[in-house]
């Protein structure tokens, strides 16, 4: 599972990122190279800035008035904070799944079809149907909902809703998938389903996942970054982080002494 032997392409390259919320310095000089077709986990105690950093990658921090980002993030070598970049176009390329399942209060079909519709990915109804089915299959939800595509997405169970949100995110054919604690609101069975799904998504996307659960990071990721108090303390192969961390703070955290 952990194929570390071959060097992978760097998909996202972040250098010297600082984020301020008003006066608060939330992210301090973080640099990280994220590989393509890999699951990268961000771990760390609450408030350490891992979600904030994640939201820099698709510029969701732009929607917060007081947030200010400095530094340089490139996806495939293109600076995403270049003034010529429209964040809307960027977010079509960088999908996101949120902590709390947040399906639109519309039908299951419309939830998945919304992204492709606004990005003009289909020419007709048949193509759109195909995209919806493909996305729901990728979200491992198709078998459960194929007979009730036109029922409201909000009527699904929590785990199903989160998989619906994943299907919605992959429907726009993104290249990067950001997941902000996608399992924190789910029970263990739903969590296991979503984790299995993440492993499959790795075939097609570069997945970045923020998680509170170290076990989850160990299970799903190939690379792990440990954040503490706005600093990125350590970033390495997941195996190495959990077995032989270099920084004493990382060791304290994974062994449960801080956090």
């Amino acid at each position, binding site marked *: 599972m952990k194929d570390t032997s071959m060097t992978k392409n760097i998909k996202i390259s972040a250098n010297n990122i600082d984020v301020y919320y008003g006066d608060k310095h939330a992210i301090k000089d973080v640099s990280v190279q994220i590989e393509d077709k890999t699951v990268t986990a961000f771990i760390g105690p609450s408030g350490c800035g891992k979600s904030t950093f994640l939201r820099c990658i698709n510029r969701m921090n732009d929607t917060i008035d007081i947030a200010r980002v400095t530094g340089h993030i490139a996806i495939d070598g293109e600076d995403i904070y270049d003034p010529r970049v429209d964040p809307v176009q960027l977010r079509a390329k960088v999908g996101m799944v*949120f902590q709390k399942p*947040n399906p*639109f*209060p519309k039908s299951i079909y419309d939830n998945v079809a*919304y992204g492709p519709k606004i990005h003009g990915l289909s020419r007709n109804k048949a193509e759109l149907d195909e995209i919806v089915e493909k996305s729901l299959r990728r979200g491992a939800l198709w078998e459960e909902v194929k007979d009730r595509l036109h029922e409201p997405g909000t009527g699904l169970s929590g785990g199903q809703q989160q998989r619906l949100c994943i299907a919605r995110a992959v429907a726009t054919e993104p290249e990067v998938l950001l997941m902000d604690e996608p399992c924190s609101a789910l029970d263990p069975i739903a969590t296991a389903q979503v984790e299995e799904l993440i492993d499959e998504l790795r075939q097609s996307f570069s997945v970045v996942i923020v998680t509170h659960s170290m076990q989850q990071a160990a299970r799903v990721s190939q690379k792990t970054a440990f954040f503490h108090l706005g600093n990125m303390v350590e970033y390495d192969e997941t195996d190495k982080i959990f077995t032989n961390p270099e920084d004493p703070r990382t060791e304290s955290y994974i062994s449960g002494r801080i956090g």
Partner: protein
Amino acid sequence: MTSKSLLTEDKRTKARNAAERRFKSYGVAAIAVAMMALAILLTSVIVKGIGAFSQTYVTIDITLPADRLDKEGNRDPAEMAKTTTIGYASVLRDGLIDTLAAAGIETEVSAKDIGDMISKEASATVRNRVLANPDLIGETVNFNLLADGRIDGFFKGRVTMETASRDQNVSPEQLVLAEQMAEVGIIETRINWAFLSLPDASDQRPEAAGLGVAILGSLYMMIVVLVLALPIAVAASIYLEEFAPKNRWTDIIEVNIANLAAVPSIVYGILGLAIFINFMEFNQSSPLVGGLVLTLMTLPTIIISTRAALKSVPPSIRDAALGVGASKMQSVFHHVLPLAAPGILTGTIIGLAQALGETAPLLLIGMVAFVRDYPQAFSDSAGLFGDPSTALPVQIYNWTQRSDPAFVERAQGAIIVLLVFLLIMNAAAIILRRKFERRW
């Protein structure tokens, strides 16, 4: 320390429970007082106003004499128009006397007093019908004519023998005659839908006064308010809530909108008088000016409720839309606005209901005038909604100023109509909200 039994209340618990019971009883008492006030108000309005929805009519056969109504004898309406309503009044009087004789009713009442039992409005009604159809002359036609307001009041219990003896306008003898006429069916009181369609009438003929012009004027104003206030308010709210940067300017605007909502409505009337009538020279008393003034007054209300509705949409929906690459505007129009729609609708309808019942600003722009002509939605001389008209609440104000007690009944009837409209609007707000909420 000995542990106490759970089966007995200790002192502290007793005091707490008593406090809770007291508080509940205050609440019940407050609600009871409010309900009683409402019940008294409604009962009083309905008891006094229900009479406006029935009216007393005199049914008589009249042979229209050619020698008095068409002196030239050529049935030309232009020539016939020379005969005034006074000429017709005498024809009606003679017709009623003949009808009484035919029914075998003998009376001491003078011919003039018999004629006065028919409304002064009736001669105009008959004249209009004859001028519209000159061939009626020489024929015997069955007419259903308004009885005088005092006679009408007698059948509704407002006028009694005792008050009639002190009244210049009606005598007890006339009332006795009216009773005899009612026995043989010449006079009867029945439902009066014309109250909703007739225009206002002069001080001497309350029996002919209706709400037609006022309802039409109110309707036109509501159209103006809806067409202007809803889009402006929704656009302003969406911009302020979703797009505008949060800085000192938007703070100032926000405070000012809240203040505008609290400005006394008569101030908007002064503003309307100064701007729309004196400066822009729109017609006085026109539903256009009334609608514009009420729009200004309603805007802050709708803006505040629309912003509250937008605020109540969970931010996760905006995140979800932005997350799949929707633009700010797409996320607002595809997701936030539909979710906020029930709240916006409710706010709008409540704003409209408030505008419908507003009187003070309309007094200042001349809508309290006496208007008998139905306003046209569009007329060549006055433009869109430019014809003078009144409105429901000012009509009520107007009628309560008149001396004849029959107008008090009219005013109470108009209050019932206004309340029914308000009830319908509020019910619509509730139904629409339920309907839209169920969709999600």
